[in-house]
Structure formats: structure tokens, C-alpha cells
């Protein structure tokens, strides 16, 4: 399918000269991108690059079945254009973002408002979509929430208990990550990347390393790729285990909740065994990894991993056995496959709607090219399906990492990395535990970052949560929210 595409094709974690990226007038880019999305492509990123007086729009799309990515760009444009969102909902936040950042107006966008901009220190002080009617009432929650959790604002339109519409207002966590990257890499860049979303440190750090290696035209040593895989799968195990526990907690099933809370820590401690930090900070660097897993440490990791996997197996068996849990999980917060595909959901949230998409399988980079991992899918789209996909992934990641720990390649863990080549565009996708982490780096004439775009999986998925709430009781919001467990800071950047 991708063979006939007018876009420039490339593999994951590869780069191409900026001049080789096909350039069309913006309306033509919108039309052709729409045509590719109609043929089954997925929109990974859609962002602006300022040039002269105008802005170039860059489209990065994925042909999952062909294991191929494709890019194209527009000529520098000012003013307004006819929105891609009007026909393809996947673009709705991307176009709002470009409008906010570069004042390029997408005409026909059904809900055009800023994504994260400040307004007197309170991004939610704006108009929200309102449902009119004498029986309708509005519930506003946040930015500060009841638990120990990041800030965001939720505005519910309710008829009694039933949620008619939920609009999610974010931006509170905005730290200027992408702006600070321009002209980089700077001394602080690696640390900022590791903090894009704290619980997905290895995912973002790996995507960043792949992008820089693609700009340099090099690859990390094989052993470093193996170590990154271990870091990524441990991150997945820790977060999925924690979320299964948290979902159990939200339906008042405390045995699994308390056990998983502890086992999650056991997985985090395995990451700390590897690199000293429970979140994998300091592990991944462009050109390789900073810490090795020597044979003694490897044996210790394998033994402790076995214990943790056995415990999580038992704790989750209680969960699936409990009728009270199934009754609360099933048919709660359902997102059907069609709207999930239209919105471009990624990761476990998409796979729980029956969509088969997993970067590790569709666009493997690093170690995953050598060792394929099965994709965990569950139809249904409800909280049960999202919990089930997490559980399948815990099992499969566990089995995968078990096998791979015994297949350690020899060699160095870090090599010297050549400087970035000038005027190139690199795309790196990584299947983080929440889904597709997309980093796009564009180098300038000196090899510095002219633009660096980060798309956290949460950017695609927050709208999925809003959709899941339609027709639900508002009291099910915490459970639905936890079943997605999206990142606020990864969205706000």
C-alpha cells in the first residue's frame, strides 16, 4: 500500500535529508495526508516548523501493515487553510497545537481553542462545550485532584448521574520542553527528555537516543539495544502492575490493590538494580547505555524477576476470579473500535478496542528487530478490556524478558556518537508502556535541533477517555481514568 504513496518513505529510527521530504502547498498536503489516512495510514505527528515569515507543516504517518513510515511537508504558509480535522478527527489536537504555536488557522475545525496556553495562570478559564437544557448540570473538577496525582481540569456535562459530554482541559503542567530543545542538544536536554513523562523515562529516553543516532547515521552497540529493551519492558511491567492494582482499588477489591502496589515497587527496584534509579534515569544515552548488567547482576535480576512475576500472577488471579470485579469492569467506559481508529488511539487503550497496533511489532527498532514480541489485543473497548490487555502484556513482557535475559549479546554498551548530520529529518517511534512515543528531530545547517517534536501517547489518547465517559455514570470517572492512566506532563510538555 505504501509503495504508491507520494510521501517519502523511511523506516523507524531512520533519517533522510530535509530536502528529500516532498513539499506541496498546504492544501495539497492536507488532501494527500487525508487520502493516505483513508487508505489505512495513521497520523503519528503533524507539526509546524517556522520558516521565513510562515510555517511549514510536517506530516509523519505510519503504514503499520507495511512496517513503513512516511513524511511530507508543506511550503511555508501563513494565515488560514482548510482543516484536516474536518475530515479526519485524528488531527484535531495537532491542528489546535499548530494554531496555538504559529497562528496558522485550520478553517472548519469544529473546536478550535488553545491546547496548553496560559490564561492568567489558569488554562481552564475558557469556554467549555456546554450542553443546554433545564435538567443539565455542569461539574468542574481540578486542576488539583483528591489524590497524589498530576493536575488537569475535567468539565462534565451531566443529566443527573449520566455524563453527556466530558471536555478535558490541560496545560497546567506546561514546562516549555519543546521550546527549550531548539538549538540543542544542550547540557540539560537529556535530563529534560527523561522528565518528559516521569513514569515513561526509558521510553522517551530511548526515542531520543534513536533520533540522535539516526541523525548521526549510526546505531548503538547491540548490547546497549538489549539493555534498553530490558529497561522498556521493566517499565511496562511496573506500570501495568501498578495500574491493575489501582483499578482493583477503584472497585474496592483490596487484596489485589495492596499486593500489586507492592509488586509494582519490586519491578521498579529491578530497574534500580540496573541503573540505580527506580525510573530508569541515567540508563539510556545517545550512543548506548551507561550501565551494564554483568553476569552476577544478571543472575540476581533473573531471580528477582521470577519472584515478582509469580507474585503478580497470583495477585491478578484473585482479580479475575472475583465476580464483583468483573461486574464493575464489564461494559464500563466503552470505546468502540471505529471511533478509536478515527481518533488514532495508540497503545493498550487502542489494543483494548481490538485495534492491532504495537510499535514493537509494526515498526521494530533496536532489539525488537531481532526478537519479535506478540501483540496483546482484546476486543470490547471497556474497562475490562483495558485491564485484560494490561494483564496479557504483563504476562507476555514477563515471558519475553525471561527469554531475552538468557540471550545477552557480548560487546560494548556505549560507543562514541558522531555529530548530527546537518539538515536532516529523523523519526523515532518507541512502544512505551502507554503506547507510541514519537520523536521527530530536524537538524539545522550546523547539525543542531532546528525543531524537535515530541508526541507522547497521551496526546492521542486523552480524547479516548473523554469518549469513554459518554453515557457513563459520573461516579465511574475515577475507574475509567485509571484504566487509561494517561500522562498530564507528557501531553503538556
Amino acid at each position, binding site marked *: 500500500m505504501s509503495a504508491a504513496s507520494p510521501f517519502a518513505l523511511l523506516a523507524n529510527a531512520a533519517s533522510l535529508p530535509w530536502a528529500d521530504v516532498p513539499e506541496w502547498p498546504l492544501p495539497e498536503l492536507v488532501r494527500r495526508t487525508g487520502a493516505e489516512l483513508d487508505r489505512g495510514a495513521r497520523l503519528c505527528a503533524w507539526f509546524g516548523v517556522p520558516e521565513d515569515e510562515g510555517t511549514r507543516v510536517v506530516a509523519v504517518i505510519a503504514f503499520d501493515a507495511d512496517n513503513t513510515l512516511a513524511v511530507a511537508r508543506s511550503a511555508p504558509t501563513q494565515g488560514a487553510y482548510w482543516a484536516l480535522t474536518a475530515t479526519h478527527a485524528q488531527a484535531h489536537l495537532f491542528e489546535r497545537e499548530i494554531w496555538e504555536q504559529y497562528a496558522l488557522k485550520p478553517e472548519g475545525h469544529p473546536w478550535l481553542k488553545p491546547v*496548553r496556553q*496560559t490564561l*492568567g*495562570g*489558569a488554562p481552564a478559564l475558557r469556554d467549555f462545550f456546554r450542553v443546554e437544557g433545564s435538567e443539565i448540570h455542569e461539574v468542574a473538577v481540578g*486542576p*488539583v485532584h*483528591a*489524590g*497524589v*496525582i*498530576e*493536575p488537569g481540569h475535567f468539565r462534565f456535562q451531566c443529566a443527573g448521574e449520566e455524563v453527556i459530554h466530558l471536555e478535558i482541559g490541560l*496545560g*497546567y*503542567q*506546561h*514546562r*516549555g*520542553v519543546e*521550546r*527549550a530543545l531548539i538549538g540543542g542538544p544542550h*547540557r*540539560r536536554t*537529556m*535530563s*529534560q527528555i*527523561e*522528565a518528559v513523562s*516521569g*513514569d515513561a*523515562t526509558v521510553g522517551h529516553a530511548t526515542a531520543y537516543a534513536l533520533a540522535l543516532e539516526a541523525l548521526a547515521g549510526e546505531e548503538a552497540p547491540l548490547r546497549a539495544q538489549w539493555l534498553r529493551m530490558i529497561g522498556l519492558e521493566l517499565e511496562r511491567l511496573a506500570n501495568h502492575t*501498578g495500574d491493575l492494582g489501582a483499578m482493583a482499588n477503584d472497585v474496592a477489591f483490596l*487484596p489485589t490493590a*495492596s*499486593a500489586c*502496589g*507492592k509488586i509494582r*515497587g519490586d519491578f521498579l*527496584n529491578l530497574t*534500580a*538494580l*540496573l*541503573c*540505580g*534509579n*527506580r*525510573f530508569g*534515569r*541515567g540508563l539510556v544515552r545517545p550512543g548506548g547505555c551507561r*550501565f551494564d548488567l554483568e553476569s552476577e547482576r544478571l543472575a540476581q535480576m533473573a531471580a528477582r524477576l521470577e519472584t515478582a512475576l509469580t507474585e503478580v500472577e*497470583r495477585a491478578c488471579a*484473585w482479580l479475575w*476470579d*472475583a*465476580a464483583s470485579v468483573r461486574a464493575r469492569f464489564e461494559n464500563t467506559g466503552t470505546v468502540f473500535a471505529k471511533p478509536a481508529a478515527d481518533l488514532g488511539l495508540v497503545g493498550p487503550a487502542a489494543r483494548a478496542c481490538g485495534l492491532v497496533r504495537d510499535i514493537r511489532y509494526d515498526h521494530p527498532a533496536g532489539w525488537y528487530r531481532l526478537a519479535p514480541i506478540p501483540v496483546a489485543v482484546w476486543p470490547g473497548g471497556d474497562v475490562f478490556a483495558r485491564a485484560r490487555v494490561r494483564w496479557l502484556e504483563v504476562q507476555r513482557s514477563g515471558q519475553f524478558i525471561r527469554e531475552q535475559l538468557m540471550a545477552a549479546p557480548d560487546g560494548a554498551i556505549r560507543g562514541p556518537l558522531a555529530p548530527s548530520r546537518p539538515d536532516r529529518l529523523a523519526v523515532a517511534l518507541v512502544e512505551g508502556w502507554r503506547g507510541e512515543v514519537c520523536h521527530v528531530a530536524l537538524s539545522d545547517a550546523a547539525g543542531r535541533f532546528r525543531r524537535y517534536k515530541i508526541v507522547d501517547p497521551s496526546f492521542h489518547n486523552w480524547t479516548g477517555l473523554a469518549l469513554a465517559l459518554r453515557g457513563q455514570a459520573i461516579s465511574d470517572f475515577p475507574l475509567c481514568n485509571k484504566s487509561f492512566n494517561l*500522562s*498530564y*506532563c507528557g501531553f*503538556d510538555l
Partner: protein
Amino acid sequence: MFVIDTLVHRLKRGRETMAYPHGPAPALPDRHGGALRVEAAKCPEGCRECVGVCPTEAITPLEGKGIALDLGRCLFCAECVTACPQGVITQTGDHRMAVRRREDLILGQPGKEEVRLAAALDEKLRKLFGRSLRLRQVSAGGDGSAEADLNVLSTIGWDLGRFGIQFVASPRHADGMVITGPISQNMELAVKKVWTAIPEPKIVIAVGACAISGGAFAGNSEVMNGAESIVPVDLYIPGWPPHPLTILDGLLRLLGRLDEKAPRP
């Protein structure tokens, strides 16, 4: 599943809460390294090896020779430990790092090679909070990691509740605020409102490098460079993020609930 099965499963797992602080503290991961110790008197003339490798400019060269390392800006990457040719900067393996005053995190000078650990609250506040401390947590530009390790303290292994410390859902129910993140501009108003809503007397605890100094994002115009830019801070807990043990040590230290005679790890 029958109720009885649930109870049996729970019984089988047994007691999982750690013995600390009445028993030994759990070991930090060996590669964690713990707090830093800086003996700037050992710095050779004109040596600047460590200054350039620090991602957050936490190390300031002093005129002539010597350095000052700010543990409140430190991301604990240990690049400086590797870079130092003289062994001036070393890892102590000690999890204890919480301090009451910002300047107590500046390391280097003779007598100030390590952090000056936090003193307990005064008698009156200890009487109020010592056996029951309710905290409102606010993340303001935090990346979710410090929040995660605060949540960990409420799990069965750590069981913060046994000290009478609890995270509560409303500032009206709180004795203090725990801040994570550098304070994004967009959260400034919310943090101020939460602080105002907490009844007096109240305390503020800054957890992690971001909340103490802005951390990796210090200097970005979108953030405020830490909690003390808008509220007074009573306890600083360094780390990126701090290990749960470091946070717990800080809380217990503040409440005067640690037995100081316990042997140092």
C-alpha cells in the same frame, strides 16, 4: 471467588510492612549512591573538571580553587563523581538528605561537606503534628515520578499511616502541603490557592530537585524555579525523584520521630 478465599490469600501474604524505623532501613540500590559528600578543600588550583559535566549547573566554581555543590539542584547522575580527578566528590550511600534550610544543601566548605540534616519542628508544632500529620499534595509541573514515589509510601510495604501521616483530599483537612514539580506558570495560581486554604499553622514540604530549584527545567520561562518562589518551605527533600526512604526519613525527621541513636548505614 468466595470471601473466605480472599481472606486466605491475604493471610498467606502475611505481614509485609517493613521494620524501619524500628529496625534497619532497607538498603538503597547499590548504583543509587545516596547523598554526596564534597571536600572542596581537596580541590586543586584551577580545576574545573566537575563544573562542565553537571546537567543543571549545580556546581559553582569558587574564586581561585574549590567548588560549592548545591544538592537541591542535583539530579544524582554522578557524572561529577566520575569526572573529579581528586576524589573531592564522593557518594556516601546514605539515604538521609532532608534539610530545613535551603543553604544546608550547599556542600563543600570545611564542616559543610555533607548536608546538615533537618531538625525537628519546634515543641508546639510537634505537639500538634507529631502524631497526626495530614498533607495535601500538589503537583505543579511535576513529571509524575516524585508523585509515584509519594504514593508508594501509602502502600503496604511502607504504610505511612502507621505514623499518623496521611495524604488528604482537601486543603481544609490538611496541616501542610507537599509540592512536587518546579511550579509551572500555569499552576502558580492553584498552588497559592491551596496554600491559602490550609488552616494555620501549616507547613510546606518540597519534594525533589524540581520543587527545590526547578531541577532540569530551572530557567525555562514557563516555570518558577521551585516552590519557595511563591510559598515558604519548611522541609527540602532532594532527589530526582527522592527514593521513598529519603522522603520517609525527611517526614519522620521533621516530626522528631527518628531514633538518632540508630547506627548510621
